[in-house]
């Protein structure tokens, strides 16, 4: 069974630039998550989708971050404009449904200069 796919794996941008990350969850997984992991810390949930609807985006900085999952499968996370403190690993994850095991992708390491 293929895992959660993410791209790109690494991205370096300058502050105030825009960046987008892509995620393809495990086939059949209705629930998709985006997490932010700052170096030395545990992951923090940014947004959770159930199919193509947002279930929880309470910790998403909506002035600069946006995410969509238009067809209930792939998802994109965008940052516009980026700040230095956005440097982190952005992890996409998926599960069959809430309350079950969550499987993580390899992450995208973002460096903002």
């Amino acid at each position: 069974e293929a895992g959660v796919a993410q791209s790109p794996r690494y991205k370096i941008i300058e502050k105030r630039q825009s960046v987008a990350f892509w995620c393809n969850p495990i086939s059949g997984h209705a629930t998709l998550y985006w997490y932010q992991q700052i170096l030395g810390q545990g992951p923090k949930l940014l947004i959770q989708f159930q199919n193509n609807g947002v279930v929880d985006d309470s910790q998403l900085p909506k002035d600069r971050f946006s995410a969509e999952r238009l067809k209930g499968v792939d998802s994109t996370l965008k940052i516009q404009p980026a700040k230095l403190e956005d440097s982190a690993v952005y992890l996409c994850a998926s599960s069959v449904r809430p309350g079950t095991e969550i499987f993580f992708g390899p992450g995208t390491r973002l460096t903002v200069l």
Partner: protein
Amino acid sequence: SQQGEEDPQALSIQEGENATMNCSYKTSINNLQWYRQNSGRGLVHLILIRSNEREKHSGRLRVTLDTSKKSSSLLITASRAADTASYFCATDAGGGGAQKLVFGQGTRLTINP
């Protein structure tokens, strides 16, 4: 906000010894999950234990959950060099279809050959 707090923050043992990591949390949960993260890699799901369960096993891993003390422990028996990684507990206290998985800061485990 951090829900789970791992203890110790770092642990260094000899190969073959057992490693025990603890996790404490503050609010009622639906389930608790343990993850492993190798340096620079994604999170790997280890075990999910539900709030009505007290103990689960998977290979060399044993997880216990004490909801009265709001704590969990992860035991790795007969440790190997490949077990060197960071270990995170994550608590799911979501409701209404939202799985709010909140991670702790992690325990960095080093297995010395």
